[in-house]
């Protein structure tokens, strides 16, 4: 079976995915940041281990999507699903892994009683904007502001 024929499998994140996530992040961003991911994966495994997911091909992790349900932030009192970070190995970006992970995470949010899911996307990342649009996300009136100190 060629690489392209292998099935993409989605499953919940676990602590042994750390190195694979670090490697994907490094391939995308060019920076080795294990301490960042050790803290984040630890956080998500405490908060809601059934939410964040990874995508596997032939047992190798090729993508990850982390998110959780939060309430009371930015004046949003309703439980809101937040998709916070997504990474897919550049060699596997044509395999719909991102879409499959998003569908799994959205299903999880639904099970938690969430009716709205939000994310933040940099305007310059057009691919990512298109990706979320293709999943049914629409621009929100909630705008991001930033000030440098």
């Amino acid at each position, binding site marked *: 079976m060629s690489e392209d024929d292998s099935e993409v499998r989605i499953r919940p994140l*676990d602590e042994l995915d750390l190195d694979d996530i670090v490697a994907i992040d*490094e391939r995308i961003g060019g920076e*080795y940041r294990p301490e960042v991911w*050790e803290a984040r994966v*630890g956080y998500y495994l405490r*908060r*809601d*281990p*059934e939410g964040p997911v990874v995508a596997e091909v032939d047992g190798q992790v090729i993508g990850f999507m982390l998110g959780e349900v939060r309430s009371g932030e930015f004046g949003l009192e309703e439980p809101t699903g937040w998709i916070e970070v997504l990474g897919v190995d550049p060699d596997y970006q044509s395999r719909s892994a991102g879409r499959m992970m998003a569908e799994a995470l959205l299903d999880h949010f639904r*099970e938690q009683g969430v009716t709205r899911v939000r994310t933040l996307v940099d305007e310059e990342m057009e691919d990512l904007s298109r990706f979320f649009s293709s999943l049914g996300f629409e621009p929100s009136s909630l705008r991001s502001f930033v000030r440098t100190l």
Partner: protein
Amino acid sequence: MKTRTATLPKKYHDAVIKWRETFIPDFDFLMESWDKHFPKEPRFELCAYREMGMCDQIECGEHTGEPKHTRAASMEPEQAGHLFGAIRAQASTEFGSIQQHRLTLARAQTEEEQVWILRMMAEELRHGYQMLHVLHEDDWSSVSKESTSDLFEDILSMTTGSHILGAFNIDFDSFVDNVVFCALIDRVGKYQLAMQKISAYKPMAESMPQMLREEAFHLAAGVVPMRRWAVQAAKGEVYVTMEMLQKAINKWLPRGLEMFGDERGGGTNVRYGLKPMKNAEAQKQYYEEVEKLVTDVNKRYVRARLPKLSLSEAEGTVQRVLDGETVRGIRPEDLIRTPHQEFFRRRGVPAFRMVADDGSSVSSVDDYLRHLRDHLPESYLAGRDFRDYTETLREVVVDGLEIRDAVRRMPSLRRVAGACPCSKSVRWVAEAPANGEPATADAAAS
């Protein structure tokens, strides 16, 4: 999925609180520190959680497709006996690990590591409580002659040395044990919980999801500090060395493998629909996970020592060093290895075979004991558990003691004094006084 919460009747709930006050004396510190270390996370609550909406039909074995059992009385006697033993053993492990962690908790080098373990201890207490709740909800008289009070007393009175599974009868020697235990022994727990999630006994299946959610963090509380220690070791810090990590892995992995039960067994649980995998199959998957953990820790070490290496160069370096080469100052002994599945075993198929960490056979007892001396933590060698093992090994090899008899000796029960339920000297479960006053769980010394 919806979850419902429940608590034990007051006298049993209070007994667990009393037990907590004895074995988790830092619980109040955990609660005081909660918002600092776990901001916005739900606070710990001592209760039982039952997942609603789970599968109603038996998912494996001879009765696949039939309705799951909601009462032990509807099960075949042998099936109920297996289940009862599993619940009791599960409870024993939950309470047992707390007693082990408590010994060396204060030796954590950072508050974060300490609070992570402390939270994990509190959640293990909840898991024990969950198992007591499963026992309390049903009538087990067909498989146990003990009253509920005596059964709970029996479980709460177990201490390191009298628990059901060997891994819970070994003292921790340092905080390295707290962490490596989470990474290796809680990993076995994850397998057991995941397998029991399909249990043909519905209350058991419904108890597993929340326990599994909590267990995910327990594994991280082991793996993340191990990775961080590897980095510190690579930078030349001497607090926790790779050799110390290796020796702790050598100490715990054999016990973890044995927790799956004999490699030839597990078929009965599958047949009865209590677990989906036989022992050997689950054990193999577990061993592969440990191999991945060890590889990842080595990669973390190499990249900390040689930060300019790319990922693929680091992977190549790890392999070359493990193959015996010294690469840019990294020696083979600087990295850790997964000991062979038959190393230092005293239960299961390889029990009392003299197999070295690399899988080679050792022919003389003295040579094997020297090998173990060089590969196990020094403080562990000085303990009773190791002494019992070595004495039994000599009897097997020199005096011809049958392996099955040797296996039965492990673990030996050492510490039951003062806590035997029939002695009535100390009771965790206090019966309601005759005058109708509310029951308390004060230990009553006679």
